[in-house]
């Protein structure tokens, strides 16, 4: 498509002041990140935080905290999978902003299966069935939007977004009525899963073995996308649907498959979050992870391995909300501001000139 790029000096304005060289392209994003961080510090100070408090939060709460890394890796379990769930449909040209709803549906089904089978089956079987159920639920939730896209032309960027709210309402319905824990002192939460339904910890750590599953799935996704003919077909279909059709590829089928797989990954993330981390369904088990995951995939331009790494970094930022609250007196949502500023910085940094839009 003809764009207005040629009428836009802004995207090229920075080229002349950049030093030539291999890493020159990394400078504008770095500047953007530092600027985002600086704005965040100023906002924190305006909100009554002190430099001392912020430094304290960083030294004692983050780097000096032996539990921090373990908390980050635990939070990364759903976040990384939901982020990879964005990259696969994106390769086929589809936007998946429904990670939040897919995580929730995965968590719901995993809870349902876990509660129903937890006392009658032995551990590994319950894990597999719950995780598979969660993945199926996520696939269904994403697949609906892909189907609406390919057969009814409904923009999946909006339908996946709306499906998040529907999933949230379904979860709240379950937690306030049929699944409400009678011993939960009135809290909207499900009964805790049986111990046998919960994934064990990695020996010697307090990190769930779910993390190992996540690592395996991430590499499998990378292999699928970059080393198989299916991944290549997806790239072709996403790049130019006419070329794809003339080469005999079914873009309809590839679109559906990519979204089903993406949804399945996010659903699996929701299930593992339940089986490995939470142990019972609560209204805030996902708490915007789906959206954070989308941002991670966005700043990595939907490359699988970088997306997984950045999603982990974002998990680290989210976990930092505790020390920021305790030591710097900031509201727990301050990390959303930081994440938003960092992503905005990356989105507008001049290296985006290469991006077609």
């Amino acid at each position, binding site marked *: 498509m003809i764009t207005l790029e040629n009428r*836009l000096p802004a995207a090229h304005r920075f080229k002349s002041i950049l030093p030539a060289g291999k890493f020159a392209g990394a400078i504008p994003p770095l500047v953007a990140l530092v600027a985002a961080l600086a704005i965040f510090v100023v906002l924190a100070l305006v909100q009554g935080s002190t430099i001392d408090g912020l430094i304290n939060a960083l030294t004692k709460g983050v780097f000096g905290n032996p539990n921090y890394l373990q908390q980050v890796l635990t939070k990364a379990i759903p976040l990384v999978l939901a982020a990879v769930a964005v990259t696969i449909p994106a390769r086929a040209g589809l936007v998946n902003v429904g990670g939040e709803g897919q995580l929730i549906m995965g968590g719901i089904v995993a809870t349902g299966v876990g509660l129903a089978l937890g006392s009658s089956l032995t551990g590994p079987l319950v894990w597999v069935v719950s995780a598979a159920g969660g993945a199926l639920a996520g696939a269904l939730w994403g697949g609906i939007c892909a189907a609406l896209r390919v057969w009814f032309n*409904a923009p999946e960027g*909006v*339908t996946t977004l*709306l499906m998040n709210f529907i999933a949230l309402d379904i979860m709240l319905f379950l937690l306030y009525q049929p699944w409400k824990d009678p011993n939960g002192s009135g809290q909207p939460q499900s009964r805790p899963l049986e111990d046998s339904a919960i994934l064990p910890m990695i020996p010697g750590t307090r990190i769930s073995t779910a993390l190992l599953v996540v690592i395996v799935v991430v590499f499998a996704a990378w292999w699928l996308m970059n080393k198989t003919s299916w991944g290549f077909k997806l790239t072709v279909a996403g790049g130019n649907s006419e070329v794809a059709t003339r080469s005999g590829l079914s873009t309809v089928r590839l679109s559906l498959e990519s979204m089903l797989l993406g949804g399945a990954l996010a659903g699996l993330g929701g299930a593992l979050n339940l089986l490995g981390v939470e142990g019972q369904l609560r209204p805030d088990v996902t708490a915007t992870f789906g959206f954070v995951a989308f941002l991670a995939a*966005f700043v990595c331009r939907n490359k699988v391995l970088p997306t997984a790494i950045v999603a982990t970094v974002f998990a680290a930022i989210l976990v930092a909300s505790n020390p920021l609250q305790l030591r710097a007196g900031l509201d727990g949502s*301050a990390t959303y501001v930081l994440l938003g500023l960092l992503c*905005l910085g990356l989105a507008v940094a001049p290296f985006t000139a290469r991006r077609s*839009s």
Partner: protein
Amino acid sequence: MITIILAGAIATGTAILLPALGELITERAGITNLGTEGAMLGGALAGVMLGIKTGSPWLGILGAIVIGALVSALFAWSVVIRRANQLAAGLIIWFLMLGLTSVIGRSYNGQVLDPIGTLAIPLLSEIPVLGPILFDQSPLVYLGYILIGVIGWVLARTRVGLKVRATGERPLVVAAAGSQPHRIQLLATVIGGGLAGLGGAYLSVGTVGNWSTDMTNGYGFVAVAVVMFSAWRVSWVTVGSVLFGAAIVTASQLQAHGFAINQYLLDALPYVLTLVILVVISARRTSQPEALRAALAPN
């Protein structure tokens, strides 16, 4: 009960109508602003803060419009000047505002101000049936009526409106004709943001009279969906908004009358309705502004 539901549908629908009219202008210029949700949050909080500080809810409303416009100016700068991906930039702006309003608004949680309330228009409100439905509402609802007409007229019948529409269809033609498509897109997005801020303030200052964290509850996203299924027409934006309002009000009325349906299932109803209509309309879509097609692609 029918009167209550219809009057409620208009009152609640206005919370969708105001941001949706704004988004309509923005999308007509070829920009999809999912940051509408963020601009609404900013407007809702700014309205309460200013309303409490100055004691005048109307100054609060004014501040909300300004904040909504500023938030959308940041979005517009990102996507028009810096060429950031529209979908992602919109979500980033929303996320940023969700965090900012939570942090800043924490001390305002639970503080109340006098909401604007309703104002029955003399004579008109006495028309049987229609009067209480249409003319016994908040002044901001009446503002909505006026905006429907004004925005519809400007977009369809004036030079400015033609430029906006042309920018959404063929920006290069607009440039060739001597106008600056970027400037038009910036302006359309900022105006849209002002209306989103107004919509946010309608929720906080206009109806309940307080601020609560994440109080817009996805209304900004629904507004974007409503604009899409409206086929970019003011009349259908209006119908869609009122339909959405009707779904919400019907849900709460059913509950008030003792139907044993879970509240959260009913809460999902408006989103399901929006989704269904969006799908039905999309299947027969022809009139999408062309520059929009590129807007919702992944980066």
